[in-house]
């Protein structure tokens, strides 16, 4: 009997606790409600609808008939798909070769600076505030073929004949990556610089006392300290470049002859050039899956860095 009363009392107390927790969390829920609503309607709902519609044939944006994996098959069997995937990987590769080490090297150099550090911080960050499309158009003029192109003008000054730049299918991707690196490396540089300044100076002193030179201090103090951050940035860069769309769109239109076509641009063309929304959605889902895996890795690394 006593046990039953005790159990009842426990249950009552538990309910009271639960209801007080719920009551206490209501304002919290209400505060996040607007953001939650925005996420649901602007991010999650379109993603869910996009995934669903990728299994349908569409009339405009209206699903007409369930077609299973047909849209995915159409995308994957497109004769240009492999080439486009290779191009996209080439974008990522060039970005890792040029765009990934450059901000780190600059950050290390800037960290060692005694004078004019503020000036260099501002000037290297400035390109970040220029929109990607504007950057692409500026660089398009730099790379323009013929004697009117800025780069060719410089070459002409040194007595070199004008060359083909974006029209050269072998270097179009590389040139686009150089422009994106110019546009984005300032932001990454600032992050690196922040992390570098967080390295305990005593560790440098200790290394110096142990006889470590400049490179020794980088290898034994700086790199171990920055490893997590570097991994994080690498993953972020891979995800960002994998989606590259507006830069090839503005600079080459994917040409010459598809040499700079990326998966993102193909997706854009499916939707806005040909009105093949089914294929666009299917390709979107494929890219989404690839990037979801990378994002998973990103979060795992992020957790590791924060720990």
């Amino acid at each position: 009997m006593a046990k039953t009363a005790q159990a009842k009392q426990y249950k009552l107390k538990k309910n009271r606790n639960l209801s007080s927790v719920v009551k206490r969390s209501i304002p919290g829920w209400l505060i996040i409600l607007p953001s939650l609503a925005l996420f649901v309607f602007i991010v999650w709902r379109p993603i869910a609808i996009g995934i669903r519609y990728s299994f349908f044939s569409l009339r405009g944006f209206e699903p007409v008939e369930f077609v299973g994996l047909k849209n995915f098959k159409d995308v994957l069997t497109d004769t240009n798909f492999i080439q486009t995937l290779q191009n996209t990987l080439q974008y990522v590769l060039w970005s890792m070769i040029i765009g990934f080490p450059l901000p780190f090297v600059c950050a290390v150099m800037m960290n060692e600076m005694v004078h004019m550090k503020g000036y260099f911080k501002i000037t290297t960050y400035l390109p970040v505030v220029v929109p990607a499309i504007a950057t692409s158009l500026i660089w398009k003029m730099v790379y323009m073929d013929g004697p009117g192109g800025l780069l060719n003008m410089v070459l002409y000054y040194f007595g070199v004949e004008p060359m083909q730049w974006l029209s050269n299918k072998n270097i179009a991707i590389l040139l686009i990556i150089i422009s994106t690196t110019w546009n984005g490396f300032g932001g990454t540089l600032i992050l690196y610089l922040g992390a570098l300044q967080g390295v305990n100076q005593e560790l440098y002193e200790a290394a110096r006392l142990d006889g470590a030179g400049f490179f020794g201090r980088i290898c034994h103090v700086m790199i171990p300290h920055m490893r997590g951050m570097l991994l994080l940035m690498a993953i972020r860069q891979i995800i960002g470049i994998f989606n590259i769309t507006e830069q090839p769109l503005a600079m080459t239109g994917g040409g010459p002859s598809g040499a700079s076509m990326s998966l993102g641009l193909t997706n854009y063309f499916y939707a806005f050039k040909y009105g093949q929304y089914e294929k666009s959605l299917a390709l979107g889902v494929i890219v989404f899956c690839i990037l979801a895996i990378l994002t998973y890795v990103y979060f795992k690394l992020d957790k590791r860095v924060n720990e």
Partner: protein
Amino acid sequence: MKFQKVITTGLTVVMLTAGLAGCGKKQGTADGKITISIGDWPDETQTETLETYNNLLEEFEKKYPNIKITPDTYRYDTKTFTMKASAKQLPTMYIAYFTELNKIIKAGHAADITDIMDSYGMTEAINPKLLDLVKDDGGRIYGIPTSAYAKGLAINKEMFREAGLVNEDGSIMIPDTYSEMAEYAGKVKEKTGKAGFVMCTTDNCGGWNFLNIAWSFGVEFMKQNSDGKWEATFDTENAVAALQFVKDLKWKYNALPDNSVIDQQESHKLFGTNQAAMTFEGPSDDYSRKYGMEVSNLLEARMPAGEYGRYAQMGGGIRMFAPDSTPEQIDACFKWLDFIGAGKEFDEVSVTNKEKNYQTILSEGGMVLDREAFPVWINEERVAKEREIAAKYTNIDPKDFESYYNFEDVILKPEEPVACQQLYSVLDGCIQAVITDEKADCKEVIKNACHDFQVNHLDKES
């Protein structure tokens, strides 16, 4: 905490209200009035045209007090059209292009106007050749042609004179064949150092232009087999020869601009700023309006001839109606068209409004032609009246357009029947391949293009 709750609830309500307010479109009757929206309304940058249209609107609503017009500056754009149509945000009446017609009808984004066309007597009044272009396979009508043109060869007279391409009587030497065109283009480059010919190479525009060359070289791009399936048929010597012609323009005659990635806007800019002497284009005042080229500096010729004939692609605009428009709304749009002189009726008011329109075009640096290449209406009296008004305001020398209007041996062709945008894209790639690489093998390029077009596009159409 209470304050926080109030703020949060308030924000949520505002957001939901704003979200819901953005959904759907109010069309139809309001206060017993028929409300319609008219697309392609001039925006604030077109001061003169906007004023003319606003005055017309005021007069129209006085004449028809039961109709209310909502101006809509939306202009057809492939990037936004489907979104607008799916969200039921299309203007009641909008203008699209011949190239887009099949896609729009297939997607159900245009109203069937066959019955109202019959009731207004428009079906019999419109040039049957143009009317056929706006019908679906079942013969139902989905639009009213507003204008039609054939592609031509635009010539920059000043640059031709600079290159010495003038006859003994001082007139401009017009290339009659593709080989003459290449020769003249090369001469312009040699004499002036500027491009003799500009052709766009990207955004599907290259393929769109290449079609005309290819047809004249005897190319057939596709055919429908007895089983209904489409087959790409351009892996031929003729197509290779047509592509070789483009390649020669670049490498043999050195006649193309240095830049190889050229969209239509860039092509217009080069031609309109005396950087290129020739381009494929129907009569356009883009050069004078946007780039300050003198209208008198433009000579429009018919397309050059190839071994298999002189081909020119037809294009033009079509007025179409939102699929959810009521018959009353479409009727109101027809009344508006009559009022501005674009409908079947062509009374005194229409004449005045047409004149006002020409005055506005001239004040904005545009071009008024002395006649239409292909009259939309078959009523000879009306066509004569329209020509009379156009002749009053024209700012071109008819001699400069004499060659263009001579359609005697020009074979006019509409779009290819299916997947034309995809075909243009594939052909863009072919053009880019041969003008960026001197060693490109035209035969190989055409073979791959034909295969890609079949596998990636036509196989999906069947």
